[in-house]
């Protein structure tokens, strides 16, 4: 297992290097030169030349990348181009919000999808099963920005149960979490159901019945346990998309997380902030992939042992 961890971690690191360079290079390709933007800033008396010099933009791109990553690794995240605020401060104030939102959404999607999928498979083709599949189709079919607007319209504007947007009270997290979780929940539901269905047809389930074990124990212990590997694998993928969607959902609900800050930074052409946040989000996504990968290996005792031996 240690060998697997080391190997997968190394792999993740390589991916991170490639991805971060892509982000870095992509920023350079984006329309509008940073230097021009800064030089045209009304308060500044800067020339484009001067800015290029200061930011090292006249050096070869690989040198710029190396310098930037070096600083990043030493914990020097740099300053905002617009207001000179340290990016670390922005990060500290917003990362918590994103983590909270993503965690609540992930939890919500699992809490909904696992029991519904499990019971749907157990009572296959019942009206309950069909009901959950309808939820799944809706969840996958409705884009999250539309769902967000729908939620706001119904629960905030018509019923006035929940605040439209913001972050001040615990009620504020409900709608963004639902909007963010819906698609993941729907996908999870289908995967749980099909994975459980597959398990229910296997010989060992019949053995458990022959042993006189209760239905509840068979379902919630044995079948769920064996159905987990694909669910865990998918959870990693879903966390990744969830993080991606925070950009949209946080912006709609003005939830002051990383996604909101990143979108704002891009809109304000705050290149250093946008670049750093984008790279950090990428790193988070790669980290989740790594964890899901290792989690999946761990969830299956066969690969666990083989990995330990090999």
């Amino acid at each position: 297992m240690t060998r697997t961890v080391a190997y997968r971690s190394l792999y993740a690191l390589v991916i991170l290097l490639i991805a971060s360079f892509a982000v870095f290079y992509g920023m350079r390709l984006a329309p509008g030169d940073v230097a021009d933007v800064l030089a045209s800033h009304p308060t500044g008396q800067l020339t484009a030349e001067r800015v290029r010099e200061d930011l090292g933009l006249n050096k070869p791109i690989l040198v710029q990348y190396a310098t930037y990553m070096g600083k990043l690794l030493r914990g020097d995240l740099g300053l905002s181009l617009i207001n000179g605020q340290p990016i670390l401060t922005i990060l500290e104030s917003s990362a918590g919000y994103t983590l909270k939102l993503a965690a609540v959404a992930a939890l919500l999607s699992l809490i909904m999808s696992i029991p519904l999928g499990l019971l749907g498979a157990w009572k296959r083709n019942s009206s309950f099963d069909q009901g959950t599949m309808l939820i799944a189709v809706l969840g996958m079919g409705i884009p999250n920005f539309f769902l967000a607007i729908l939620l706001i319209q119904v629960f905030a504007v018509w019923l006035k149960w929940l605040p439209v947007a913001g972050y001040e009270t615990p009620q504020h997290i409900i709608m963004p979490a639902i909007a963010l979780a819906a698609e993941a929940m729907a996908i999870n539901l289908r995967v749980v159901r099909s994975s459980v269905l597959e398990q229910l047809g296997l010989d060992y389930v019949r053995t458990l019945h022959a042993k006189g074990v209760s239905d509840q124990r068979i379902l919630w212990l044995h079948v769920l346990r064996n159905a987990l590997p694909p669910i865990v694998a998918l959870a990693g993928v879903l966390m990744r998309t969830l993080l991606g969607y925070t950009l949209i959902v946080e912006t709609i609900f003005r939830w002051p997380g990383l996604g909101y800050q990143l979108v704002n930074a891009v809109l304000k052409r705050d290149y250093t902030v946008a670049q750093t946040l984008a790279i950090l989000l990428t790193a988070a996504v790669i980290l989740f992939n790594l964890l899901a990968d290792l989690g999946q290996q761990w969830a299956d005792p066969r690969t666990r042992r083989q990995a330990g031996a090999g």
Partner: protein
Amino acid sequence: MARSFPAPVSLHQGAADAGPPLLEVRHLVTEIQSRQRRLRAVDGVSFQVRRGEILGLVGESGCGKSMTALSLMRLLPPAATIAQGEVWFDGQDLLRLSPKAMRRIRGHRMSMVFQEPMTALDPAFTIGSQITEVIHAHGTDSAAAARARAAAMLDRLGIPNAARRLDSYPHQFSGGMRQRVMLALALVMNPQLLIADEPTTALDVTIQAQILDLVADLRRELGLGVVLITHNLGVIHEIADRVAVMYAGEIVEIGSVARIFSDPKHPYTQGLLRSMPYLYERRPSLHVIAGRVPDLGIMPRACRFAARCANRIDQCTETHPELREADRDHELRCYNPTPFAR
């Protein structure tokens, strides 16, 4: 008892006692729902098993022997249902029990082992936890006591280092070892009846012999009644006391092993015996029963074996033969039995 057939006599000792039968199946009918039709996989099967007796249930694939076994345990797949019949076990009709009461009997007083040891165990749990699970489902043993019992059972079934192997996972065991674990699951509660559905078919010949010897020993030691399902007549001959031959959902001949192997009366049983290979015999080719088993959906109303039968008379294609006594402890479903010529 005169035996014209060579038999390892020692295994036949200490068999059935008198008294009421342990298991009595009466006119069992099991149907499978398939698209628009209901097919009778088991059609009016009746038999008895006494304490300490091994009843062999033979027949080719699809004759309904596994469906019969699963019906007894009430473990049929969702598409199959028991349409009629009674299964008397220990003074109660199992088919009338609530699912909960049935669950308390399974694994406790009546157990089953299956054909495929490779897939019959839960891959995600240790051997030990799978055995103690049965103990906890039916008893009040402490965790430590259950574990000790599980280890003792594995040890009894010939698994070396039993106490340590409790923490192994099924994939770390060979097929023969897994079948021993399956037997441990089935026997740890000291049941009265064991239903074994092709328990050795998936195993090597040497392992087969070990497992069968084990079953024979256990029945002697524990007074276990066994329903042994197989298509292998050699296995039946080796350890069973009585045998029921099934064809197309019905029992066509039933009786003691000694009698049926020396004097088989049904043409189908005769064909099966003729198609068995013998080690010391030189034959150019094995005997084949011509034709094939009729499809469940287009079952002939008269004798089901008639189309493949060399002894067919007119009556065979007109009315359905009933199972009737041919001899002492020997029942037969045939209008025109002829002496067996090998």
